[in-house]
């Protein structure tokens, strides 16, 4: 971080999602990247957010219980036979 930097670290961490989502305007984007280039703390923060996103993507989601699936398939069969009659 350098003292002429218009974006402080505290401001930068609030812009990280907009940055990753491509939602920063050109001026904000330039200031964001300039700050990032010289600030190890913010660079690490961004890295950790990326790690968070990456690991989240490896989580498995809630599986449907076999009971619930059986109930739904039963309902589907009823529905299908009623609608083709």
């Amino acid at each position, binding site marked *: 971080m350098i003292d002429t930097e218009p974006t402080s670290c505290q401001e930068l961490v609030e812009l990280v999602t907009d940055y990753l989502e491509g939602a920063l305007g050109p001026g904000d984007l330039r200031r964001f990247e300039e700050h990032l280039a010289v600030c190890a703390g913010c660079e690490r923060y961004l890295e*950790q957010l990326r790690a968070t996103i990456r690991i989240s993507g490896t989580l498995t989601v809630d599986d449907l219980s076999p009971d619930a699936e059986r109930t*739904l*398939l039963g309902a589907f069969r009823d*529905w299908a036979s009623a609608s083709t009659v």
Partner: protein
Amino acid sequence: MEQGDAQLVAALRAGDEETFRSLVRSWNGPLLRVAQIFVPSRAVAEEVVQETWLRVLGALDKFEGRSSLKTWVFRILVNTAKTRGQREGRLLPFSALNDPARIPEPAVEPGRFRPEDDPRYPGGWSAPPPELPEERLVAAETRAVIGRAIAALPATQAAVISLRDVEGWSSEEVCNALDLTEVNQRVLLHRARARVRQALEQYLTPQIA
């Protein structure tokens, strides 16, 4: 109607069980997460998901493809869950979904930055994020920590981060399914990710956080 959706709908109307089973399985996690915004417990959310599928079948003939099938199913879920939530006496988190920015919530605890009047680095890190050991980042344990951190989030944030980062949905899909603006979706995602990162840091470097 979008082509993939047209095929799905045609298969469902033809009574193809495999198509139904695969939809029910692959959307179960996201449906549960979203239902939990509106109802008080996981058990009730499961009932809401079941009821949603029954309604989807009942209304499938009326599906015209003006939205994607996924969006349409999630809209039915949200309506079902809201109704059920009201019956359960749950106060709907309207502001949490529609105006999340009204309640400010910093991504990083303010105490980790220098004060505004710091002579050299106002708002600069005083306690920057520590280095996280790479080999532990990939450990199964760490994934479990992240899973728990997501589960502990406010329900709206949990739903948004689950759809975006766990399920890999686009922001547009999430906005459509939850009827959120782009800005509010980003606010919720931002807070969710910030909290999960914090949990990760706390777990991997407990002495600092």
